[in-house]
Structure formats: structure tokens, C-alpha cells
């Protein structure tokens, strides 16, 4: 099982079974409070479940941080249409690698969370949409689902409660865009993965035109703990309006990269130095991508902050999906911006003009710039073109490409200037940058 050394600073809620022998098996799960929350939920009314999730102040872990309880309450439970629970396991954000660990180490926790969600919104079918590149995980998840069916934790009349639920995995085909919830729905319906117009929101008109609850793997994995121990206990772990813990995927130039479960609001500098074991090779910190490649970058001096949605929003960045990337002083920010833009240009679905044309233009411009063929006027133009995308694209992919780029140009102009006049990249001596 993929898992790094845990840190003593972690507060283990969703990852509490990580590292246990056979943590992925149903036996191990049942031996450690498994499915207790499910039975408890069966005794509660759907309204009580939703209320509990609201109290927990659980916010979506996929990146947008939408309050989960509120999302659940939007699903019209009394609609005559079938309702679906769809799990977004299309974890594609560069820097983020938590959902795979959850599915690998504790698949039954996810299944239990899905059942509780199903109970809350009166859904009896669920689909786990797993990114195509996680092929091994699809098989792994299928085995866990088969085990749950075999032991009566899925299927008809689950454990005699009278509750029916069928769960399936569905493979993505290699498109970042399909992590966007409505594109995911199109993809699951067998169409080209293109985002849909909102409203209507998936809660009302989702998969196959039916009410659909769409949640991230980590969000639903937190649900059993919330129901079992109460929403208030979960909320208390974090900051107000930011309940519970977060899985932080620490990567980049640090000594102990890995996935750590930390309370929401954990200080970023402590994260680097105490959890992540400090900067690699004793280098100086240059910048941090707080929550995955789409978040505006933080300069070293901005990093003494608690990591929660609201604080990061205040300094115009985002907590995103928890992919925290640490960059040291040897990082070429032009190359870093290029690497990010290469990703988005490759992943842009092509639906709307600003994202389709903008990302590709910026990628080629940054390529030219990094090779020493840049002009001084390119520097403000990179920011300007990004702003022409920002907030004007059909879905958030364009924003995801624009936001880090704008912040990099604004915060590290000296790196750009150093590439002017045909000069070679001043960081050419440094090790490969992250994501390379």
C-alpha cells in the first residue's frame, strides 16, 4: 500500500486506518468501528443526517470548498425521479494525491460514506468516477465493492435495514476537465466530457437528468466519522466554518513529502518545517502553491498563515484540493509557470474560446520566453492575457490556468526579467523543478 511515514502532528480522522495491516479489507474495517455510522444513520431521518453534516462544517474537499451539508440539502429528496450519488475520484489536479490513498487504504470508509449520503438524499445508486490513469485503483475499488456486496453491505436490503444501494466504478479516459462536476456527468453518460451550463445545478438536474449528489472522495470519506462521533466533534477539529481535518499532499523541495492529515487551519510554515521535515538540502523557501496547481502562488513571506479556506481567500489564494507544493530558491518561476500552462493547454477541453486559445497562446509564449527569446513587453502581456481568461471562461479551468500565472508574474517579475535579452535561464544549474 502506498503510504508515507505518518507525522506525530497529524490528527487522524479519515486516515486513521492508514498503515494498519490489511486496512483495505472489510474485516479490518469492521474491526475498527466500520459501518457503525451506517447503522446509526439508518436510525436517523434523512433530515437529521443532513443537519449533522451541516453542523460538522464539512466543506467540499475537491477544491471549491462548498459546504457539504448545504449541497446535500439542495437535492430534492422527494423528486419522483431516481437520484444518484456520484463520487468524484477524477483526482487530476497537479500536486494532489489524496483520493487515491483513501481508496487504496480505506475503500470501505468511502463506501460507508456513500451509503450514508444515499440514505440522506434517497439515492439507491452510486457511481465512483475514477480517473483513467488510476487503472489499478479501479480494480482495487471493484474488489472492495465486490467484498461489500458479498457480505451484504451493498445490494438489496443492506444488513437487514431495508435500504438498497448499488455501487459501480466508472473509468475516466484521461481528461482533467472531467473532474469538473458537470463534465464528469457528461462523461459518465457516455458523452464527450464538456462542462454543462449552470443552472440547473447537478443537485437538481444531474446524471441522466436526475437529481444527483456529487462529492469528492475525501468529503464522503469524512462522513462516517461525522455521523459516528457527531458533527460537532468534527467541526471542533478545524476553525469556524471550516470543520474537521484536511489531507495535505505535501510535495516539492522538502525532506519528507507525503500526504498528512492535519486539522483545517494548520499553519503553513509549521507544515513545511515540522511536518514536512524542512527544506531539502537546506535551501531557502521561495514560494508555495497552497492547494494544487490552480491556486495563486504564495511568496515565502506570505506563508506564515493558517491553512483554511477563508484565510487563503483573504490573501487571494485558495486551499483548493490540498496539493501543497513547496518550491525552493533554485526554482525558475518562468519554467514553473510554463509547466503549469503546459498542463492546462493540454487539458483545456476546447469548448470556449478564452481557455482554448488563451492557454495555448500563453504556453507557447512562455516556451519562447523561457528559451531566451522573450521581449520586455511580453511580461505584462502574460498577465494581461491571463486576465482576459480569468472569470470569462465557461468553466473554472480557464481560471485555474490564469490565477497561478497572474500571481507568478506579479510576484516574481525579477525571474522574468532575468530571461530577457537572450540570457540563459539563471536556474539552469538547479535540479528538475516539480511536476516535470
Amino acid at each position: 500500500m502506498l503510504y508515507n511515514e505518518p507525522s506525530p502532528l497529524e490528527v487522524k480522522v479519515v486516515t486513521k486506518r492508514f498503515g494498519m495491516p490489511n486496512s483495505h479489507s472489510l474485516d479490518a474495517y469492521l474491526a475498527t468501528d466500520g459501518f457503525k455510522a451506517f447503522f446509526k444513520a439508518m436510525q436517523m431521518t434523512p433530515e437529521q443526517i443532513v443537519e449533522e453534516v451541516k453542523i460538522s462544517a464539512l466543506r467540499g474537499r475537491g477544491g471549491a470548498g462548498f459546504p457539504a451539508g448545504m449541497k446535500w440539502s439542495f437535492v430534492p429528496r422527494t423528486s419522483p425521479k431516481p437520484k444518484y450519488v456520484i463520487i468524484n475520484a477524477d483526482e487530476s489536479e497537479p500536486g494532489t494525491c489524496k483520493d487515491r490513498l483513501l481508496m487504496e487504504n480505506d475503500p470501505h470508509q468511502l463506501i460507508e460514506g456513500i451509503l450514508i449520503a444515499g440514505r440522506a438524499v434517497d439515492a439507491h445508486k452510486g457511481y465512483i468516477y475514477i480517473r483513467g490513469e488510476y487503472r489499478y485503483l479501479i480494480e482495487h475499488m471493484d474488489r472492495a465493492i465486490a467484498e461489500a456486496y458479498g457480505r451484504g453491505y451493498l445490494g438489496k436490503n443492506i444488513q437487514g435495514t431495508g435500504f438498497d444501494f448499488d455501487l459501480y466504478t466508472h473509468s475516466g479516459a484521461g481528461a482533467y476537465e472531467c473532474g469538473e462536476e458537470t463534465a464528469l456527468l457528461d462523461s459518465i453518460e457516455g458523452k464527450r466530457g464538456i462542462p454543462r451550463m449552470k443552472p440547473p445545478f447537478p443537485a437538481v438536474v444531474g446524471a441522466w437528468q436526475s437529481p444527483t449528489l456529487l462529492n469528492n472522495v475525501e468529503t464522503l470519506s469524512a462522513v462516517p466519522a461525522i455521523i459516528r462521533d457527531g458533527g460537532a466533534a468534527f467541526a471542533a477539529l478545524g476553525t469556524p466554518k471550516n470543520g474537521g481535518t484536511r489531507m495535505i499532499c505535501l510535495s516539492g523541495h522538502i525532506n519528507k513529502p507525503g500526504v498528512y492529515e492535519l486539522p483545517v487551519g494548520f499553519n503553513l510554515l509549521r507544515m513545511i518545517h515540522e511536518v514536512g521535515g524542512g527544506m531539502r538540502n537546506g535551501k531557502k523557501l521561495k514560494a508555495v502553491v497552497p492547494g494544487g496547481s490552480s491556486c495563486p502562488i504564495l511568496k515565502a513571506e506570505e506563508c506564515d498563515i493558517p491553512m483554511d479556506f477563508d484565510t487563503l481567500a483573504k490573501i487571494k489564494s485558495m486551499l483548493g484540493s490540498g496539493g501543497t507544493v513547496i518550491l525552493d530558491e533554485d526554482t525558475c518561476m518562468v519554467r514553473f509557470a510554463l509547466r503549469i500552462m503546459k498542463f492546462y493547454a493540454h487539458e483545456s477541453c476546447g469548448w470556449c474560446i478564452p481557455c482554448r486559445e488563451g492557454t495555448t497562446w500563453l504556453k507557447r509564449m512562455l516556451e519562447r520566453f523561457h528559451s531566451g527569446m522573450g521581449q520586455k513587453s511580453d511580461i505584462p502581456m502574460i498577465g494581461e492575457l491571463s486576465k482576459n481568461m480569468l472569470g470569462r471562461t465557461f468553466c473554472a479551468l480557464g481560471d485555474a490556468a490564469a490565477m497561478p500565472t497572474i500571481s507568478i508574474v506579479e510576484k516574481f517579475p525579477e525571474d522574468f526579467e532575468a530571461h530577457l535579452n537572450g540570457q540563459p535561464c539563471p536556474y539552469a544549474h538547479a535540479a528538475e523543478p516539480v511536476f516535470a
Partner: protein
Amino acid sequence: MADLINLTIDGKPVQAAPGTLVINAAKQVGIEIPSFCYYDGLTLQAACRMCLVEVEKTPKLQVGCTLPVAEGMVVHTDSPLVHQSRKGMVEFLLTNHPLDCPVCDKGGECELQDMTFRYGMGESRFLEQKMHVDEQQWSPVVFYDKPRCILCYRCVRICDEGMGVNALGVVNRGAVSEIAPNHFDHLECDECGMCIDICPVGALTSGAYRYKTRPWEMKHVGTICTHCADGCKTTLGVRNNEIIRGNNRDRSGINGEFLCVKGRYAFDFVHSAERLQAPLLRKNGKLEPVSWAEALATVAKKFQQAQASGGKFAVIGSNHTSNEENYYLQSFAREVLGTNNIDHHRTGDVPALLDALSGKTDALATSADLYERKAILVIASDLAQQHPFLSFQIRANYRHHGAHIYTVTPGPVREQKYAVRSIMTIPGRELADVELLREQLKAEPELVIVFGDAIKGDAVHKLVAFGASLGIPVRYVCLVDYSNSRGASDMGLAPNHGPGYQAVAEPGLAYDEILAATDLDVLWVVGANPLKHLDLASSRAFVVVNDMFLTETAQRADVVFPAASAYEKSGTVTNVCGEVQRLKAGLQVMGAKPDLEIIGLIAKEMGQDIGIWSPDKVLEEIRTNVRGYNIPLPVIATGGAAQTTPVNGHVPLSARPELIQSARDSLFTSGSLGRYSKMLNSVLEGPGGLYSEERP
């Protein structure tokens, strides 16, 4: 009506119905919000982002083409931010655009060009190399030039939603996404060319038009397509007496943006090398070109001789010629030649329908009814093949209004895809199968019944009785084949009735009887080709033919007059729904004359007066003399369609309904005209049709 919503756009107060999109609300007060992907009637796309507007109290720019109006909304479409945004979008669009306007077919009528002119910047900041993709040919009529494509998906949507063909899609992603045809490297479709006309840029170009001219070098003549009976308006682009293209990009006329392969491309028969350009006279057994004077004199003399000797005359008219010509021709036959031996190839039992509807009002459907009425029943016709516009209307009705469609056809038809219930019938059982729908139809609030030539004679009366028994308002369309089949019937090209279905005292010979009569002395065939299928029994008959081409009938003729096509003359035609529209002459072809003029010249040569041969003058006569044709002139003069009002009384019925027979033309054939259209013959592919087995 629901209360109107009040909002402000650029300081102007606007009232709009709930659900109105901001882009349309702005249009109401004369404010244009630019857009590429928004196209009225197609699904919303919000992909081009040109229509972004500022809405007060919302942080981001909003998409004008998908945002419904809200009470108290304050919209700015002219603010510096909006302008900056548009400038940015145009700049993005032009990054990989080849900027080859000087050689692009769209140059001059290109939406991207216009937007760049109005909202773009003066200079290009794009220093990278443009991505190039070679041009692709998908069919004889459709070419795709990827670098010009802005991916607005209008083509994909019109093909899927509008046509129900779904032949276009998108492949790849990001900046290398492109439109792709349904069969790897080529299209197998209706070849309607809707995708080309709807393309806002020069990405999809027409095989018939490309690299031939610039839009401003043409005269644009709005006239009526001369092929099927649907009567679509087509705008001919004419340069130097040559039709370069047909389209309806201005969405005027009853058909909006719709045109099928024939309306858009099959005008080229006009310029066929086989067009007759001088009268032909049989000399020593061979047809030889002669002067008009000689040909007219010969015919007049022959007519007068035959009259003097009490000879037997017969006239066969056309269902392509104008109402004026048909009226004039029957006047000539009845008044000058003194015969009721006059007929045309009848393709639908219109008289039976009018008779059955005696005493009813509002019982004839217009083409707009097919788009608006709540339920449609199609009996025994493959509309997508024979009446592509009616089929388009029905699809649009289903899409926009959720109309209930029912079909009773002897084979698979496209309408089945949208139908609530489809019955596969066998010829002769149509009415029995319609009866199976009774309960469902009774529950509909209203109904339009569209029926083909399988329902004729008594069956029409039975069908109307069935409609009346449903207890709901029912309207009917009796399908006929060609551009003026309906008009030919209305104008009295029939042995048993004159114009306006006035009974004649002594009915003459019908179509097949004329050809079978062994004692016929003179046969005059105007724009028809009866000898293609039947033989002329009378070997002594003197045969005069007006035609564009040396058809089978013309080859038998003693005199052939070169006739003008519908695109070369003025007048009116009546479509399948009884809507009268105006033909406008777009060009002149050397040597050919309109049939109206030919008839007039013969009359004059014979010293007879049947009125002057001006289309307007004859139309005046028609309006006075033909029941139902007192149509408002301003409507048709301005390019509109005026439905003829039903006769509303019993009309003389044909004793022999078996004569009524559709020619079963497909989407890619058009009687004898189709033979001379190179373009039409080049696209003979398409997804099967007319109940064929291999239809997908």
C-alpha cells in the same frame, strides 16, 4: 400572459417576457450584443464568450446569451470592461486564424471580420507561429478549413438538432479541437449545406460557390426554389447572368434558414450545356434550330388548320410553371383551342381534400402550423426525402414546443425518431392503421394531418371524416410533388374543372387518355415530360413542346420552344400548403423565353386576344377570377407567403383517382430537372431514403 420583467440595458428601460435572454432583450431596444455561438432556435452554447456583459451587483462578467432577464437587473453592454473583454476574445480568436480574408469566400459577409472591425484591436500581438491544418473536402459540396474555424458548434447543432442527421461532431481537445464528419474523412448526410450557411466564418465552404466571386459582386435575388412543393425562399447570388449560389442566410421567407440540397445547389441546371437556346422545328424528320418567327408561324398555322378542320386538340401542362402561366395556358386551351382536353401530372388529391373540407374553415394547415401546432400526424410519406422543409418544421416543433408526432408509414422515416407513436403500415392499410391512433389523437388539443398520395379519392373523405370524429381542431396538408403542383390544380389544368375548381360543362380527356387517344391531331406539352413513361398513341399528332431541355417528349415534337426556368421569370407559385409566393427573375438565359410569353406570342400569331402576357396583369386576373386567390398583394410583394383561402364548397372530383401518383423523388432527384444538375448528381449518396432497406 405573464407579467413582463423590467430591466435596464445601457440606461434604456426594457420590458421583456420572463425567460427572455439578455441578448434578445437588448435586441428589443436596438442594442446589439455580439455573439458567434448564439443562434436563435438552437441550443445555447455559451462557448464564444463574445456576449459577456456587465450586470450590476454581480462580480464577474455575465454571459448575455444564457442569462435570463431578472426584475431590476441593470445591464451594461457598452462599458470599458465589456469592450476590453470583447477585444480580448477577438484577439484570442485570431491567434491561429490565417487572416486570409482576401481569398476567403466569407470575406465581406463574415461575422468574424465584422467583429474584428468593430471590436478587435488594430495590431496583432501574437508572435508565435500559427498552427496550420490542411483544408479537407468532406463531400462534393462541403469543404472544411480548420484554421478558420472558431468552434462555435453552430454546424454541429444545426446538423443534429435542425436536420436530425447528426453528421458533424468535434474531435480532439483544446486548441487542436476540430469539427469532424461522420465517416472518418467524408460526410454521408443530406448534403443540405445548412452547416455552410450557418458558419459565421469561412471554415465551412461550399463546393458550388468557393473561390468564384465575392459577395458584393453578386445581385441577390430572393425567389422561390423550383424543385419540391415546399416552396422555400432561396436567395440567388447572380453575377453576369450566372447563378453562383443559392442560400437563405437572411432567414427570410417561410423557411427561415432552411434549404435542402436542391434549394441550395441544384440551380445549376439553368446553366446546363444542354439548355435549348433556339426554337427547333422538325424538317425532313430532324429537329433543326429555326428563328422564333418561323417556329411561331408554323405553330400558329398548324393550330389554325387543325381548328378549321375540326381537329382534336390536347394540352398537358406542368407543375413547375407559374400560376400565371398555368392560368394563361388553360385560358388558351379553353378559349382559343376550345378544348377541355387539358391535364397535368397530378401528384396529390387536392380537389378531394377541398371537397371533403366543404363548410369547414381554418382546416388547411400552413407551413407555420407544422411548427406551431401541438400534434402532427404523418401518413404515408417520407417527409425528410420528399418534403425536407416540412420535415424540418416538424423537427423544430418537436424541439421547441415538444409537439407530439405520430407516423403511419410503409417504412422507416426520420420522424419516427421523435414520434410518440409510429405505425409501420402496408400500402392500402393506411386508414385502418390511423384508426389505431384514435384514442391517443382524441386526447390531443389539436392536430395537423399530413398525407401523401396513398390517400386519394374516397380515402381523403374517410380521412377527413376520421379527423372530424376526433372532436379537436384538425388541419390538413395534402402532399404534392413539385414547386407548383398545387397551383396547377388550382389554376384548372384539369379536364373536369377550370380555375378555382369551377366545374366545366363537358369534361375533356385526362392525362393518360390524351396520350392513348389515337385520333389526336395536336398535342401541346408545356414544361412536362409525359413521354418518359407513356407512349403517344396518335402517330399523326402534331406535337408542340415548351421545355428547357430536349426531353423524351421534346424529341418526339414537331416544334420545340426553348423555355425559361423558374429562376428566369416572374410570377407566383403555390406551395404544398397553399401558400402563394412570388418568383423573381434573377437572370436571363439567351434564347429562352418564359412560357407565359410563348403562349402569348402564339396567341398573337393566331390573331387571338387572351390578354397581355405580363405576370402582374395575369395575377390580377387570377385574383379576380380564381376562387381563393384574392390574396393580399403587399404580402407577396414583400417576399411573404399568402395562403389561399379554401374554396369552401363542393368541387368537381376526378373520376379516376388512380391518376394521382407521386413521382417519389428523393432528396437528390427532381424529376427531369435533376438530370441536368451536375451538383445534384454529384452528391447521390446520403443516408438511404424513401423506405429503403439500407437506411441506417
